[in-house]
């Protein structure tokens, strides 16, 4: 069982390593969004406190870029009908869900390893960031798990419909909204970094964690009804 999961995950990572479709398109898209942010913030006055807004901007960037990546979750399966090969193989189809989830999670993390420093480089250099901002990693990871989890399930639904990408967006955004609220609040608390906000930080992360737990359990349970002939 676990070896099959590893085989599937290895396949997904190998495919991406070779074709690089997902990561490259996500990175390019993220850069474009950053340039748009540049234009958007160009008129702000000097005393404009970017810290208040940066958490929201960062998460908007992550969600939209993740949509680009999630849409390509099954692109390799679609090329030569490999999806049917998976459907016909005798194994627990939710393993496909888990392997795709981990693959998408890894891609999101790789994306953020590049994009978050870039975000700092473009917008936050002037403002004094507290030392706690390194804690930003926690909401980022929790957010990635949630987005990858629900996103993979929805991508399995939309990958075979005709207007796939917009359909994935409209299905994902409302479902992801509570997670987004929690992550933005946690990230804001850390970026602004005032002491009394730390208590709020832990609570938001707790909320994000429980959201991930509930939604991933539901997605895992429902997956066998999604990936079927």
């Amino acid at each position, binding site marked *: 069982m676990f070896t099959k999961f590893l*085989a599937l995950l290895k396949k997904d990572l190998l495919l991406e390593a070779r074709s690089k479709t997902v990561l490259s398109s996500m990175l390019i898209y993220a850069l474009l969004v950053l340039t748009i942010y540049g234009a958007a913030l160009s008129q702000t006055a000097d005393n404009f406190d970017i810290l208040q807004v940066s958490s929201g901007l960062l998460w908007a960037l992550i969600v939209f870029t993740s949509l680009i990546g999630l849409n390509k979750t099954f692109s*390799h399966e679609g090329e*030569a*009908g*490999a999806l049917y090969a998976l459907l*016909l*193989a005798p*194994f627990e189809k939710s393993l496909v869900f888990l392997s795709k989830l981990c693959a998408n999670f890894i891609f999101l993390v790789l994306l953020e390893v590049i994009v978050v420093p870039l975000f700092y480089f473009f917008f936050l250099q002037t403002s004094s960031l507290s030392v706690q901002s390194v804690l930003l990693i926690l909401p980022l990871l929790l957010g990635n798990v949630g987005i990858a989890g629900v996103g993979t399930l929805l991508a399995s639904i939309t990958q075979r419909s005709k207007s796939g990408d917009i359909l994935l967006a409209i299905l994902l955004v409302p479902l992801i909204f509570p997670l987004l609220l929690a992550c933005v609040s946690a990230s804001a608390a850390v970026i602004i970094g005032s002491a009394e906000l730390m208590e709020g930080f832990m609570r938001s992360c707790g909320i994000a964690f429980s959201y991930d737990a509930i939604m991933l359990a539901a997605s895992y349970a429902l997956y066998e009804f999604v990936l079927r002939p």
Partner: protein
Amino acid sequence: MTEFAVEAYSLTKKYGARSAVKDLDLVLEQGKKLAILGANGAGKSSLMRMLATLERPSSGSLSILGKDAYKESDLLLQDIAYVSHQSQLYLELSAQENLELFAKLYSIDNALERIDELLEKTQLSYRRHELIKHYSQGMKQRLAIAKAFLHKPKLLLLDEPYAGLDPQGVAVLNALIAELDEGVSIILISHSPEASYDFADELLMLQEGEKVLYESSSQLSKEEFLDRYKQAIFDESWAL
């Protein structure tokens, strides 16, 4: 040994209002070979996909190797192989990687020898580490056939296997089929009546989803079969 490879009673498949397969009764004994013929759109591929448990029958009953095709499909998958027009492979992976992945998914124990053996037989071993996307259509088809034989299926479903196959591929496919032990039943879709007659024990002709001919080749002379085939195809072309 279950006696019947396939048992279908009033099998129907509807796409919205249009029914691709209508009230089809079909019984195929284990180890027998069945050829399915008919014009395009006669429902051959829909029937094949239902046999491969890839699609759910709208009504009627279908049991394969003694198990219900839809409810117990996951028990059946180990014994079924389906070769379709698409090669069902990952283009960005090499032949070796593809077969290794599916060997794991089909939990085949002596995977590497089995893969070597099959690559030998399909004369692909010299290009086993090359990405499939550089393969010719014939080579992809041969690899798809290798993948189908990987887990020694009891029921082999071939959707126009000879279409788009280079002569080398035809020889490879025939050799592999010849090597199969008797217990394996084969269902094949084909457009050449002569080859189907010689190959199959039973012949099924579909027209607009309905059975117009279902005989075993022993009870039907070749000429008469070819006549009825032309007649059905003539009907078909007129109606379109």
